[in-house]
């Protein structure tokens, strides 16, 4: 059986090829790619991909047909690599079930067959060894694929996949901003301690004075929708490591901490002296944010004059 690396991706996730390249360099296996959706102007040959299978058509509403297609046609894949988002994470699970192989999510380090992953709610690093073929889901934006050579044409085959049994009735876009919170140097993060969306102005002013980005807890993005999801920090949101993290009106539940544990200096501002976040801070100010933030912002501005 010839073994290979299969990378599954779309136009918005080309960074994931960087993971396939690292596995290729470690194992000597060749890379095949399954390219979903529009693929005009993309030549994966430059990145060391030998064969490309292009699937045109709608997005991945039902992962089942694509997973069956992969199972039937890529039985010889030793590493199946795909980007990390909710749609791909659904595909990875389905594929695992059909192929009877495990999934590794967001390895922080990989030297196949050894992998390191975050575990126990991002509070630990687990070292794993997998001998069997494995599915790897990784954050595309964290990798920069190398261009090995110009004009190396990969062979492209157009393939099609049967429709699934789920019926798409409607799609609504989400408001997206181009904040890249993972790269922020200073973050002012806001939580449910703010009583209304308008009140976030207090944090925005502080952020401006500091040259900081705005972060938030899950309820503010997922429930209240006061901020877009790019600002969401935590286990189910973004993982950040700014030089300075200032948490305002956030209680400090473990799922929030999971996203900011590796920050430099951590400041917590909370009215409740028993807020759990105070156990994980460098400086904690017990005070009403509505009183503290205006004073803090004013003093920081004064200091810079």
């Amino acid at each position, binding site marked *: 059986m010839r073994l290979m690396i299969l990378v599954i991706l779309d136009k918005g996730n080309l960074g994931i090829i960087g993971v396939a390249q690292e596995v290729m360099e470690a194992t000597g296996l060749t890379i095949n790619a399954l390219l979903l959706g529009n693929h005009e102007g993309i030549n994966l040959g430059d990145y060391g991909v030998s064969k490309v299978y292009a699937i045109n058509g709608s997005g991945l509403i039902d992962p089942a047909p694509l997973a069956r297609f992969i199972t039937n046609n890529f039985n010889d894949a030793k590493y199946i690599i795909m980007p990390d988002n909710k749609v791909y994470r659904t595909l990875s*699970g389905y594929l695992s079930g059909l192929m009877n192989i495990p999934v590794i999510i967001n390895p922080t380090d990989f030297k196949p067959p050894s992998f390191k992953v975050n575990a126990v709610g991002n509070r630990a690093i687990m070292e794993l060894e997998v001998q069997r073929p494995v599915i790897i889901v990784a954050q595309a934006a964290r990798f920069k694929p190398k261009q090995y050579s110009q004009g190396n044409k990969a062979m492209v085959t157009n393939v099609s996949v049967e429709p699934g049994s789920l019926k798409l009735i409607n799609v609504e876009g989400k408001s997206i901003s181009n904040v890249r919170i993972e790269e922020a140097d200073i973050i002012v993060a806001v939580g449910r301690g703010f009583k209304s969306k308008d009140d976030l102005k207090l944090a925005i002013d502080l952020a401006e004075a500091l040259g900081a980005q705005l972060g938030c807890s899950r309820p503010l993005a997922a429930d209240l929708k006061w901020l877009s999801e790019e600002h969401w920090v935590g286990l189910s949101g973004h993982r950040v490591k700014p030089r300075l993290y200032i948490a305002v009106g956030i209680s400090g539940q473990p799922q929030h901490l999971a996203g900011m544990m590796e920050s430099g200096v951590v400041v917590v501002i909370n009215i409740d002296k028993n807020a759990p976040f105070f156990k994980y801070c460098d400086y904690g100010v017990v005070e009403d944010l509505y009183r503290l933030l205006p004073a803090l912002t004013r003093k920081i501005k004064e200091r810079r004059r």
Partner: protein
Amino acid sequence: MRVWVLVKLSLDTSQLRFSGDRILIEETPLRINDIDRNAVEEAVRLKERGIAKQVSILTVLKYPPLKDRVKEADGLIRQLLAMGADEAYVVADDALILTDPMVTSIVASEVLKANGYDIIITGEASIDGYSGQVPAMIAARLGIPVVTYVKELKVDNGIVTVRRDLDNETQVVDSRAPLVVSVTREINMPRIPTVIQIRLAIKKPIKLLTLNDINVRINKVINVKGIKAIQVSRRGIIIDSGSVEEKAEKLIEYLTKDNVLR
């Protein structure tokens, strides 16, 4: 319809016990994975609307020491029965300790196949593993569709309509049972059972199963070589006295000394 809720008894990440860079797993309490309460709530609502005839809970224990965990599980699962679920199955076996999500899905699918199912509801992911893989893994093993990250669920005339909350869009999708649905934390507010409901739940059945009972043998495909705690030590300086102005000044003084303000 027969509705199942898959529940993980996770490590309580707010009460982790450490020794150096070791996490003392055996000494850390379990906690019902928070989002699984949302899953149970959604199932119980289907029952109240006359759509679900029976709501069953299924959990696969993953943490040692097994004997104590079985007792601990009983107390936790009773809380979910008090919310309105009818019965529960707990799979406990030494061979399942610290196994990966794929193993959970193998075990769960066998229990489901043996008992029958229409809708299987899970949380979007667990607070400890946070992989979100089990729902789709089970759907694949059962050969049925899956809809993940659901924040609204309706069942009407056999048609299941969901609203999925994805990264860049929300999708409204129609499907038919049998299917697997994973729900988000935003789908509902899990109820707090009354004292009477808690008392009644004592009589509801919890069935304990071993791998032998369900005829499953496990080959470990992932070998865990070590688990190391991520440790960050923080100064923990609390500023809680003085006027608002003084507190702000104090904080700026510290941050200036640390050289983190530009």
